[in-house]
């Protein structure tokens, strides 16, 4: 293909115009990426102007630029947070060595797997959400899903940048594979299960950005501690964008809950559905589903991979440098509650092997904060309803609880009991059909669908009624 004007087409701070290896890889990959975006990105809105944020530098102030842009023209850039020349490996067996600027040979495969697994989630979510804009409850929300999608696309670029720059031919192959897998495809599914679940209604979208992107936050944080400096710097910058995605989910759910509370109060028999809204019980079911599915993303409670990643200095804990004083994690243990032969057993696990669970603990705390805020929002509307998170044992498909059955409080129950209560705890086909029946796109400036409250404020200081998408 004709040479690319790198500086203007691909904003970057990785000296792309002088990096022939990266240029060669991208020249091959970029057309395929654009083809993938056309095939699997938001469907039918590619030619519209959307008010989008574009990352243009890694400066803490003014890193982003807002303007109308057609998504295929979005300038997917490559940014790493600033390099600290003094940075060291801060945990694991190699603690104190200078941070690696190149991949150490013995960790090459492991690192590539980490990067591929993380990278695979980025295009997956775009694929899961490609029809969503059509049923957006407002132009504001429509713009948000587009924003989330282009930035997931950029995060894919970020991971592909690492694969292209540090992993040679194998890295280039893996980058191609990232475009070949498809969310939910029977033949070439995405690597992680939660990214093969359909996300075709807005309640699922808010849950996804709340819970799955929050998993992303914790994964990115633990990778930003990595002794492999380019990975660390890449993830740090991704986190700045990821914050908005979680904001969309967190406030989206809060808006749904507030509106559900209003409609419940409005209806003479307290039935939000009778008012064309979503009842709180249904919202709670979606929270149960997505929270439990996203807990699986952290991996098994006892994991030799997790231990290896930590030992090698590739993946640390959440805020490893800030929150911990001891960074080898040796000679320490963590109690993990196993469920064996129908009984709970507390097992002492070497801390390094329990790193997945350590990260999951932090994630659960973070989710619990949001849930408290939502409950308060519902109460502020005048309704006495407590939003809750299910037990970490509920509805799990990975790890030590997989294969056993638990209620929302985490008490063991039989498979038959679980199946009998399933429709009370998790979204049913009828619930999903109901959501589809009330979710119609609202394309008028300043208007919002009946089932959700408007946001408290708009994007980039604009009003809610701003024309976020020019349809």
């Amino acid at each position, binding site marked *: 293909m004709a040479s690319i004007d790198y500086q203007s087409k691909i904003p970057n701070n990785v000296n792309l115009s002088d990096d022939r290896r990266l240029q060669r890889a991208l020249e091959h990959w970029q057309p395929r990426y654009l083809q993938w975006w056309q095939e699997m990105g938001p469907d039918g809105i590619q030619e519209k102007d959307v008010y989008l944020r574009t990352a243009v530098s890694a400066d803490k102030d003014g890193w982003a630029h807002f303007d109308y842009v057609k998504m295929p023209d979005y300038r997917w850039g490559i940014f790493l947070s600033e390099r600290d020349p003094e940075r060291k490996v801060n945990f694991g067996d190699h603690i104190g060595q200078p941070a690696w600027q190149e991949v150490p040979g013995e960790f090459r495969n492991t690192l590539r797997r980490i990067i591929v697994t993380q990278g695979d989630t980025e295009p997956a979510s775009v694929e899961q959400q490609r029809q969503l804009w059509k049923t957006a409850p407002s132009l504001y929300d429509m713009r948000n899903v587009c924003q989330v999608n282009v930035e997931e696309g950029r995060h894919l670029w970020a991971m592909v940048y690492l694969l292209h720059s540090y992993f040679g031919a194998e890295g280039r192959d893996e980058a191609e594979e990232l475009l070949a897998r498809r969310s939910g495809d029977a033949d*070439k599914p995405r*690597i992680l299960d939660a990214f093969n679940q359909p996300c075709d209604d807005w309640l699922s979208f808010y849950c996804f950005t709340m819970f799955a992107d929050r998993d992303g936050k914790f994964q990115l944080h633990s990778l930003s501690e990595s002794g492999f400096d380019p990975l660390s710097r890449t993830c740090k910058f991704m986190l700045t964008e990821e914050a908005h995605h979680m904001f969309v989910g967190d406030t989206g759910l809060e808006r749904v809950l507030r509106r559900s509370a209003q409609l419940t109060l409005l209806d003479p028999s307290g039935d939000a559905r009778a008012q064309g809204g979503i009842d709180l019980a249904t919202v709670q079911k979606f929270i149960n589903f997505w929270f439990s599915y996203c807990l699986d993303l952290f991996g098994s409670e006892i994991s030799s991979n997790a231990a290896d990643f930590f030992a090698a200095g590739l993946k640390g804990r959440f805020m490893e440098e800030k929150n911990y004083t001891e960074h080898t994690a040796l000679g320490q243990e963590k109690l993990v509650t196993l469920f064996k032969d129908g009984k709970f057993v507390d097992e002492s696990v070497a801390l*390094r092997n329990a790193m997945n669970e350590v990260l999951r603990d932090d994630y659960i705390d973070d989710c619990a904060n949001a849930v408290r805020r939502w409950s308060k929002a519902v109460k502020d509307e005048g309704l006495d309803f407590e939003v809750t998170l299910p037990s970490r044992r509920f509805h799990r498909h990975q790890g030590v609880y997989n294969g056993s059955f638990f209620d929302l409080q985490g008490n063991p129950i039989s498979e038959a009991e679980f199946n009998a209560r399933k429709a009370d705890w998790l979204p049913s086909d009828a619930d999903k059909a109901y959501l589809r029946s009330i979710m119609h796109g609202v394309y008028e400036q300043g208007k919002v669908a009946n089932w959700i409250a408007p946001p408290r404020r708009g994007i980039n200081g604009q009003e809610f009624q701003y024309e976020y998408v020019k349809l």
Partner: protein
Amino acid sequence: MAHDSAHLDLPPVTFDTSPERYHHWKLAVDGAVATLTMQVDRDAPLRPGYDLKMNSYDLGVDIELADAVRRLRFEHPQVRCIVVTGGVPKMFCAGANIKMLAGSAHGFKVNFCKFTNETRCEIEDATTHSSQRYIAALNGTAAGGGYELAEACAEIYLIDDGFSAVSLPEVPLLGVLPGTGGLTRLVDKRKVRRDVADLFCTKAEGFRLRDALKMRLVDGGWPKSKWDQGIAERSQKIVADAGGNQGEQGIALTPVARTQVRDGEIETLTWPNVTLRILHDKRWCELTLRGPSEAAPASAAGLQAQGATAWSLQAFRELDAALLDLRFNYPKIGLILLRTVGTAEGVLGHDAAIAQLRADGSWLAREIQLFQSRVLRRLDNMSRSMFALIEPGSCFAGTLLEIAWSADRAYMLDDPDAANSIALGQVHAGTHAAHNGMTRLQIRLYGDPDGLAKILAMHGAVDAPTAEQLGLVTRAPDDIDWEDEVRLAIEERVSFSPDALTGMEQNLRFAGPENCDTKLFGRLTAWQNWIFQRPNAVGERGALPMYGHPQAPVFDWNRT
């Protein structure tokens, strides 16, 4: 019961199982196609102390596989294609269980690997000789022993799901070797180029379909949506190429039962045709085979009616059971004295009947001969000293004479007052090849081709002096010397270093060229055994104990 097993407080290992009792495999037979599905019950390890996670296996899993492979030949002879596949999501088989290996005594690991190797060879034997073609349908990742199992199959298919891969991660991940022929079959059987094989064996995560196909690691594959159809079409084609379902009726492999009596230091295990008398304090045993007492079957129908009770089958099944008992449950017994009781005519009569029925097209006669060959090879592979004692009343004739030639030495009593002879039969010319593809007679007379030709032209009884002169036995002491010479030989033998003896015997037993099987049992096993003893593998900070633990292994970087 006192016990020499590596696990002192545990019951002995038993090899007696059947499909309705399997924990880990499902055997489904549909006409000429059988499906063997590996679905390991993680909570049913053979020994406590590890979970059989991710379709990993231990000896218990492999005992069931061996049973299924054997039953397919005898109970389902009409089967032409066996599809070996996985029954858990995303993982065909993760190989031998690492925690099991790390926690096992060295001798147990060696015998575990030897048994699994013999089972893989048995799979190949079925493809080569019984027109039972195994295809590996890898519907998930096949790692380590999982890929080795696939390599034992005639064809390998890998699902194309962007995830599943084939790999041999032993070197990069565990600091040991694939122990079930993985390396040898790669270059010798699948003829993967050696440098390509080097890349494969050092990449822990392995290769997915596209690359695996290019590297000849697999023979094909399909995406998930076309997978079942692809495997079904391939297996139907295999059946058609083999002439379709011939409708052979199988026989039931009834259990091989034994009794066990312990009297002080002497323990006796008794089967109908085999007696194993173990002298615990002396560290040797007597293994006695009884020749047939009834006439040989005269027709294919007669043989079919006898089924598992046909002497040629039953006696060798019992011998097989006794050998496995010795390997796993009596590791301290260093010397096996091989004896026979019966008439040479009886053995030669049964040999001749089976050979004739096989020539006339009896599948069962064929299977019996092939089975006898495999048991004889298992005997060759015993890491124990073996002396055959040929005395009056014995029946070292035909197939049973092969046993004497499998032994490290054969002593034959030259007694002027009691007739004592061995008897040559038809089977020595090529019926029962050893692992290297040669007959035991060829190996024995590797340096004497003229003598070999002369012997092959002979039939029937050979007395002791002639046998010694022809090189068919080691020594033929007379009645005055016999007792002392045999006693001294035994006492001397059990006094030597067991390790040195194992190494010496394995070096001397297999003269002649190598092939895939001999490399596998000789070269591979020897290296694996060495590596398995080294601190880099099993030391406190060796790769095996550190696997799955929070710290990385520490290696001694000196190369030898």
